[in-house]
């Protein structure tokens, strides 16, 4: 089986300061990879390099494209990469404001990607948008409301719908449940898990919340100071951590 995403030796420096260094991993179809680490560990830098938001100094991010098979997304022409990022890729930002158009209705937000790939039938766009709002548990009568009128949890669900409407195969998530109430987090996690399984999505999830990765991720990568210090099955890394830092991280979680 060909990995959907093959990451090799990604390094990124900000001047002399290290962002992340020599990160490599494979992600297979249907897999969810969690990346954990504290603030400044390089996990967001890594995610941005993978998703094409930042250019890494070294390394390759090889994506198994639908038409041409595996291709390095870092050296591919920008139009092609941007096309990927609005069709086969999705990116869920921690702050829904970064991933939504706040002045555009919920329906318009969901429909944008469809229009971006050439859909020109209003009726079709609207029915797909309504369908997706239903999938993310936003009631139909909110379709013409702006996200600024939504709660944080609803905004985040809308962002997910907006991203998944073109049936991407890979979804990048940056602290998808950060900043949400615990009760809202649970609902979102449940939704994400369901979508990942039903749509066969692969995902890379960056978070500092170990409970989130335990429920969402199959595999886990622990980062510290720009380096990957440990990788493995999520439950194995959390229950039998090998690296000193991971042990510290796991033992520092407050028990409820």
């Amino acid at each position, binding site marked *: 089986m060909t990995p959907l995403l093959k990451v090799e030796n990604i390094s990124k420096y900000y001047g002399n300061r290290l962002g992340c260094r020599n990160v490599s991993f494979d992600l*297979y179809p249907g897999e969810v990879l969690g990346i954990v680490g504290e603030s400044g560990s390089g996990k967001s830098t890594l995610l941005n390099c993978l998703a094409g938001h930042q250019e890494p100094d070294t390394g390759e991010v090889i994506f198994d494209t639908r038409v041409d098979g595996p291709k390095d997304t870092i050296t591919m022409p920008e139009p092609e990469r941007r096309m990927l990022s609005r069709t086969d890729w999705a990116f869920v930002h921690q702050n829904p404001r970064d991933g939504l158009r706040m002045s555009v209705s919920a329906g318009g937000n969901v429909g944008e990607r469809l229009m971006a790939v050439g859909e020109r039938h209003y009726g079709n766009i609207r029915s797909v948008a309504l369908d997706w709002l239903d999938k993310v548990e936003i009631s139909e009568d909110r379709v013409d409301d702006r996200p600024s009128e939504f709660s944080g949890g609803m905004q985040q669900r809308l962002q997910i719908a907006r991203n998944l409407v073109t049936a991407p195969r890979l979804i990048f998530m940056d602290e998808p449940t950060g900043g949400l109430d615990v009760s809202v987090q*649970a609902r979102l996690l*449940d939704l994400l898990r369901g979508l990942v399984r039903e749509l066969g999505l692969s995902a890379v999830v960056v978070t500092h919340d170990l409970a989130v990765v335990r429920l969402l991720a199959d595999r886990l990568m622990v980062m510290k100071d720009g380096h990957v210090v440990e990788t493995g*099955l999520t439950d*194995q890394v959390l229950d*039998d951590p090998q690296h000193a830092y991971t*042990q510290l991280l796991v033992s520092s979680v407050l028990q409820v």
Partner: protein
Amino acid sequence: MINIENVSKSFTLHNQNSVVIPVMKNANLKVGAGECVGLTGSSGAGKSTLMRMIYGNYLTQSGRIMVGDVNVVTALPREILNLRRDTLGYVSQFLRVVPRVSTLDVVSEPLLAVGVDRERAHERARLLLTKLRIPERLWTLSPLTFSGGEQQRVNIARGFAHEYPAMLLDEPTASLDAANRETVLSLIEDAKAHGAAIIGIFHDDAARAQVCDWEVDVSVFTPKAA
């Protein structure tokens, strides 16, 4: 089906003066299809540790743990995930699920994961929940709101939903009343009849005697203090 050879395991606590705690040495165990083996030994002897090593939840330093044709010790994470999905079931003492997911979906999940359609998965889930006496009015609720005994039974229903060829049972009959205990034991008998290789931990001597073909005292695998 499950074949453990010369397996050793120790924990290194980096944040506590890097103390190394050996917990298992040269463990050997072989369980064939349709057999059930009970692990015995005092608390802390390493029964749960061994189970977790077989499940890939704990890393194993040396030796081989073959489940079917997969060596858990050296397998890639994705191979272990496939093994857990198709071959190796695990009923732990604790229920770990996403909040808010209905009991019916929690129990159906292992079946959905192996590609059973939703309707048939729910049918099987309903059958198991009925057998284990979970009242129907609770099926649409999240099991996280249930009592300890109910959670345990939901966990068992989930563990037996898919007919795994190999199973690990960590005190499946603890905190159950007599009737439910009987049900669980009959589920184990059924699994054995289907050819499942089972390793179990039972504190309940009678239960162990009823379903286990033989017993292994894990304290023989415990490294002696130097």
